């Protein structure tokens, strides 16, 4: 027994002593590290870090990371939401509207042929790097856009230039832009190669904002490189955007998913009321809703219409005027029956758009009668209408010997768009309507980025759901984009009137006289709805933006071009 006890003590106490020694050493080491390490890292907080300031901070939930901060190379809403606060254009959008208003240009005029435009510029404006905004800066921006080379010419980057101005200085494609001349510090003259109805409205687009020529040169703004299967962006686009706007870029904390803007203390106009504007990236819509409810963010864009009613109880839900279009497209490539106008008309009569809009769209959505909203120039009051009439649809199908019509109907999954909040239910409603008049529907659903857009753009569908949110108030931005070329989703090269429609659109866009232009677009709209019918306009759906009741002064914009400069936030 004695032996046992001795052994046990030896076995237990020796390791215990060792263990204690280890513990002491470990604690000493930890303490040393704890004392020594902070000496390696210094806090870089500014004096204002975390402190309460006069105008406060507004945190807005963003649905995704901005592509970059140089708006010229961007085509995504998250980039534009940030860049609109940093930059300004020669013209801007009227708050709450889609028409243009003076911004960095005080006024403008054109020659009767619509090709030469003179802009009188605001005086006393400086870029955020302290350099002057003047005629030279305006022309430096136009020249920069026009002289893009290499990878920067790719439509994934210079999308809005391609879409509106066409080609570049290398003359591979015709360009709308001809030249820019700074006649004085307060006057810039822009020459176009032809007249266009979208000028100068197009300059209100975020992509055509004025950027500091000095900062662009310093941070190599044009140095876009195709690297493997993507592009790399220069320092300017990543972290040095420099405009004239009411907010200054302060930083993008990628580790935390936040973009911070600060008030521009040297802004030429009324200064921003907020000290800081923070965009917090929260990709999941439900997570944005909960962050708002918990008070972690002060607002977010495009809340799900299903949540509108709940949100209206405790928050300010601002519903925008609809400035978009959802349409059912017909691709006339693979199904010869769709080349017959009577068949397309039958499908239009078969769809109960009124019920569809009231049952699948948010409140304030409207049945669309044309391919763009009524607030856009050239909307025609007297186009052919297609009220719900299943019997007429059956008769037309019979007349066209298409009573046994079968269609491949594409609809997208994994997506919601402002014009298409719930693709599944929209598809379901249309499918039921078509089946009710004897059309056999083969449903084909694909993820938005996982084959849907590919197939629709490559004209593989017979019927498809798609839409568009307007960039600015011009019919060319809608129907010019949809039907301007023959090689498109609708496969207009198969239509005998495809070329005629394209020519008419170009002629209308090139008409400098506004009254004549309006008449021309009205005529096109009448023909689109009666003689051509490349698709069925379904709805104009409103989108909303929501903020807490502490936030005041936010004016909802139909083109999602909200400005945060007049916005204030109260602490209570």
């Amino acid at each position, binding site marked *: 027994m004695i032996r046992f006890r001795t052994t*046990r003590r030896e076995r237990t106490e020796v390791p215990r002593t060792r263990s204690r020694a280890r513990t002491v050493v470990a604690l000493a080491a930890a303490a040393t590290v704890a004392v020594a390490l902070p000496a390696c890292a210094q806090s870089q907080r500014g004096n204002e870090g975390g402190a309460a300031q006069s105008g406060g901070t507004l*945190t807005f939930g963003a649905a995704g990371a901005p592509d970059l901060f140089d708006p010229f190379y961007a085509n995504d809403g998250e980039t534009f939401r940030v860049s609109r606060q940093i930059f300004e254009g020669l013209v801007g959008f009227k708050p709450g509207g889609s028409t243009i208003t003076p911004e960095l240009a005080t006024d403008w005029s054109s020659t009767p042929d619509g090709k030469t435009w003179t802009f009188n510029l605001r005086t006393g404006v400086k870029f955020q790097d302290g350099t002057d905004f003047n005629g030279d800066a305006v022309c430096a921006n136009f020249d920069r856009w026009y002289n893009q080379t290499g990878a920067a010419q790719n439509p994934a980057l210079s999308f809005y230039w391609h879409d509106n101005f066409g080609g570049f200085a290398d003359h591979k494609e015709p360009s709308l832009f001809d030249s820019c001349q700074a006649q004085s510090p307060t006057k810039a003259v822009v020459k176009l190669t032809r007249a266009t109805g979208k000028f100068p409205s197009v300059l209100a687009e975020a992509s055509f904002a004025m950027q500091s020529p000095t900062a662009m040169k310093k941070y190599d703004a044009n140095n876009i490189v195709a690297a493997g299967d993507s592009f790399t962006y220069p320092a300017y686009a990543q972290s040095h955007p420099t405009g004239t706007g009411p907010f200054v870029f302060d930083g993008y904390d990628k580790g935390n998913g936040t973009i911070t803007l600060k008030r521009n203390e040297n802004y030429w106009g009324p200064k921003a009321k907020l000290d800081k504007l923070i965009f917090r990236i929260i990709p*999941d819509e439900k997570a944005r809703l909960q962050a708002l409810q918990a008070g972690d963010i002060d607002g977010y864009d495009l809340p799900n219409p299903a949540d509108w009613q709940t949100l209206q109880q405790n928050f300010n839900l601002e519903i925008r005027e609809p400035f978009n279009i959802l349409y059912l497209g017909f691709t006339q490539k693979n199904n010869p029956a769709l080349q017959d106008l009577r068949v397309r008309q039958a499908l239009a009569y078969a769809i109960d758009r009124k019920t569809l809009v009231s049952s699948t769209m948010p409140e304030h959505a409207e049945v669309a009668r044309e391919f763009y909203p009524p607030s856009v120039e050239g909307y025609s009051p007297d186009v052919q209408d297609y009220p719900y009439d299943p019997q007429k649809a059956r008769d037309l199908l019979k007349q066209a010997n298409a009573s046994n019509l079968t269609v491949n109907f594409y609809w997208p999954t994994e997506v919601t768009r402002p014009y298409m909040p719930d693709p599944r239910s929209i598809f379901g409603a249309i499918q039921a309507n078509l089946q009710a008049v004897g059309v056999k529907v083969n449903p084909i659903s694909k993820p938005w980025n996982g084959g849907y857009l590919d197939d629709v753009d490559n004209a593989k569908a017979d019927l498809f759901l798609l839409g568009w949110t307007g960039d600015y108030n011009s019919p060319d931005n809608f129907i010019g984009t949809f039907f301007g070329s023959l090689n498109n989703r609708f496969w207009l090269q198969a239509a005998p009137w495809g070329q005629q429609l394209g020519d008419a659109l170009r002629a209308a866009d090139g008409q400098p006289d506004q009254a004549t232009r309006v008449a021309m677009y009205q005529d096109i709209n009448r023909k689109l709805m009666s003689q051509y019918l490349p698709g069925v306009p379904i709805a104009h759906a409103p989108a909303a933006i929501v903020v807490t009741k502490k936030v005041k002064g936010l004016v909802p914009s139909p083109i999602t071009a909200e400005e945060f400069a007049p916005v204030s936030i109260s602490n209570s």
Partner: protein
Amino acid sequence: MLSYTVRRLGQLLLVAVALSILLFAWLRSLPGGPVSALLGDRATAQSRAQLTAALGLDQPIPVQYVHFLGRAATGDFGVSTGVQPGDGALTIFLQRFPATIELSVLAIIIAIGAGIPLGYLAARRRGGWMDNASVVGSLVGVAVPVFFLAFLLKFVFAVKLGWLPTSGRQSADLDATRVTGFFVLDGLLTREWDASWDALKHLLLPALALGSIPFAVIFRITRGAVLEVLDEDYVRTAHSKGLTGGTIRRRHVLRNAMLPVVTTIGLQTGALLSGAVLTERVFAYPGIGQALALSFERRDYAVLQIVIIAAALCYVLVNLVVDLSYAVIDPRVRT
């Protein structure tokens, strides 16, 4: 031991190469791709063709893979097109990895800290109220999907009670200094205590959600292992030798019971990434789990590839560490 370690490290390289080939071919054979994601509903047939050519996606997949290998050899693993456009995939991974490590470490600490003691106590008091309650708790932990638990925790503690933040890694208006990318550590290093505390508060709910399954598994394995060891002859012998209960528990029961538990911890740590995809999504936590989900949604090939390959390598590495730790716990393995 050394040759074994070297051999296992060699396997890592093989796993990486095999995975990169499979992933490369698989991703590019999926419908859709970065062209659709980049151009969206504003694409035209012409712009699609131009972008496809510019990105080299019109070339045969083997040619694209050879180009990829050439670039990867120089440390260029491609550039993001969707998660953080314009940033290198490796940069994005390195930027987000500390976030996921921080989250995973706290999750596994919670799982081990609760799972092992509870498992041990449950086994010691088999059939008692504590045993029954813990077993039911662990069953719930295994059965409830991570995303549901995450939503539930968030709804109760963040939205309703407002005790903890709903999303992100840190409050943006703190203007915290970044040093290592581990936000809790950064706050300690720079003596920005509020930043450290804020980061910890952001971590707590996602870590609880993420740690729920590992907790349940560790608890059950510990309980089972302890019960088995308690019945072993050597424990009876130790008792008959007159050793104290504490010595027997520490040196004979726990030590032997820990072998399967350590294996389980290794497997669970490796599997945390799959849980992190859901948890990070729910809590908008900018780690690699969120990057994985976003990169798939936006067909960001470069980020998708590097995250999956890195996750696989981590899994293999963690299991290597587990195997090596056997030697520490069980002296028989050293020989």
